[in-house]
């Protein structure tokens, strides 16, 4: 048994899984409150990656940033989260809210429309070329070279930052949903929007905030992808969105811990498939989506999803 390889693959999988988990959280939050599959979510993630990129360029680029590196990274996250949060609220207000009482297929089509709109707008505005964060040049390469390098464990600083910030965001979200008044309102809206409204909860506001938070998490994931893997482009949201959606379904769509678990499983699945299965890297998507099918066959509601009860 090559322990070095196993440990390294687990590190790779957890890092990738944390990003998928953040994307999955957005899917799951929106589905939880509105029962809507927000297919534009992956493209909001792409917009987040671009916002982070432009903040980085604006502040001098990776090789010669004009501000402190910590401040730079924080600013990239804040800008991307705010930008994507506002974009999410905007999408909800103009593409989904008018269709809230329409048949369920209508907002689904609207979501696909918004996804294509965002992709093509990005193509028009940013061009089709790949942009690079050149994050391996940040801090003279310290973010890559430094970190934990003990025996088989080889975790760069950039991976620690990614996993750490993803963890912090997930904990904050869980606390918000479980402990705050807003979280209670969100849970009430998710449980029964009409009843929540009769109890005095402004459900429009709650849904808008849900979109803001979910999209902000996607924005953070976009910056993480840029910092970790450098290359971003207008179509990147499609694949990442698909993986995030798969993670949400595997974990049990509507369940916050489920989204995290699903994200980690997909990330680990990809990494281990690439490392151990024949032609694993070539067919890693095959393995990931096979996992989805098997999971749905065994547990149609996902790992932590609850079966929907229907009054008969």
């Amino acid at each position: 048994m090559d322990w070095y390889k196993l440990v390294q693959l687990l590190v790779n999988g957890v890092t990738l899984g944390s990003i998928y988990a953040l994307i999955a959280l957005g899917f799951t939050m929106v589905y939880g409150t509105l029962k809507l599959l927000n297919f534009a979510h992956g493209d909001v993630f792409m917009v987040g990656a671009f916002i982070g990129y432009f903040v980085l360029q604006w502040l001098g680029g990776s090789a010669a940033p004009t501000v402190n590196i910590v401040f730079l990274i924080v600013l990239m996250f804040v800008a991307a989260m705010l930008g994507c949060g506002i974009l999410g609220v905007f999408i909800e207000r103009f593409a989904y809210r008018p269709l809230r009482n329409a048949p369920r297929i209508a907002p689904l089509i609207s979501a696909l429309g918004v996804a294509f709109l965002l992709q093509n707008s990005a193509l028009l505005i940013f061009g089709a070329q790949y942009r690079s964060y050149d994050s391996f040049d940040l801090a003279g390469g310290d973010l890559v070279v430094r970190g934990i390098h003990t025996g088989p464990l080889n975790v760069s600083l950039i991976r620690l930052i990614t996993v750490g910030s993803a963890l912090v965001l997930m904990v904050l979200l869980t606390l918000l949903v479980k402990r705050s008044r807003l979280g209670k309102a969100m849970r009430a809206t998710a449980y029964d929007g009409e009843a929540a409204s009769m109890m005095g909860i402004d459900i429009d506001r709650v849904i808008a905030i849900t979109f803001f938070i979910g999209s902000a998490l996607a924005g953070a994931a976009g910056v993480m992808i840029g910092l970790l893997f450098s290359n971003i482009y207008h179509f990147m949201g499609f694949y990442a969105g698909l993986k995030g959606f798969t993670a949400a379904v595997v974990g049990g769509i509507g369940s916050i811990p489920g989204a995290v678990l699903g994200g980690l499983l997909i990330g680990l699945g990809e990494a281990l498939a690439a490392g151990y299965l024949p032609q694993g890297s070539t067919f890693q998507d095959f393995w990931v989506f096979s996992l989805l099918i098997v999971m749905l066959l065994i547990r149609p509601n996902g790992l932590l999803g609850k079966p929907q009860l229907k009054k008969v």
Partner: protein
Amino acid sequence: MRKLIVIGTLALAAAIVGSLSTSAAQGGATASAVSCKSEATIGYFGPNTGPAASIGEELRNWTVFYARQWNKQGKRPRINIVEGDTQFDPKEVATIAQQFVANKNLLAVLGPGASQEVLAAKPIFKRAGMSYIAASATRTSLTDGTNPTFFRIAAPDGIQALSSSRYMIDKLKAKDVVIIDDQSSYSVPLADEVQRLLKKAKVNVKRTSITQKQFDFSSVITDIPNGTDVVYLPIQLATQMQLIGNQLREQGKRITLFSSDAGYSNDFKITGSYFSTFGPDVRTFRTARSTVSAYFKEFGKKAPLTTFGPLGYITGIATVQAVARACKDGKATRAEVLAQMRKTNLKTSIIGQPVRFNWRGDRIGARFFTFQITKTGPRTVR
């Protein structure tokens, strides 16, 4: 009801016949001569945007450059270039190729850039008898005799595979090599051939692959054994080469990278790495100096210049001169331009080599060059 079915069937048959005759007419545009006494139209398409945009910009600049010089000198016919952006996407290539064919004034095409783009354009141009010439498409089978209107300046991958594998064996003394292809129609045959040649020389070869849409290679890299001497990357995106190099460094693996022709790019800058490419560094040629300075004057001091552009410049020369020869009597057909392309005979060129094509469309005497990336930029090593 039966009457309705009969009428419907007749209408459908009429529509099919109509559409067939339209497409025949489009293809038939090749047969009729167009006036080109004062102006002739040619097409250019390449990856101006998209993942290969860094190469696309340079290819585009250099390819249209000769036509601009021609027009500035007041030569006749004046060359009008219709442009298309393939975005490095075969679907776009097919659409633009159809548009070129449908334009009855268009006599020949410059481009496209990459092998999979040529494959997408092949049936369309073949049917229309349209001459087209690529600077940098290297897949060996593109000139297997089934692509009679195609020409290329770069040497085919059979030569690249031989040159690269010899360098890895003779100079880098490689005993263990990992080959990573990107599953494209350019990458796989090249990887196959290098793998075959390395194995023949008793080198241990491990093969894996990625996709052009993949953004994380860390697990692929984890799977690369520590004692590996060379990682060979016959892939098309320099951004992916750079990420692979960085992720190797991240995992503490100091392995030499050797890439194929897309490695000559500002996006790939891992010091100590090698790449093979189909042209020399023209900046070192005294004979190319005036053309190079004219290029920077035309497109700006920061305009890209690697080995791609000068080959594009040659495609421009070959095509414009072929069109001019075909248009001597004031009119020309695509077939006449194609015949003139076959007669191309440049005694020398910007890359210091003559340009003539064999019956398959390959440039006679084309070869590959090997570069190493140093702190000051790429340096020719063979």
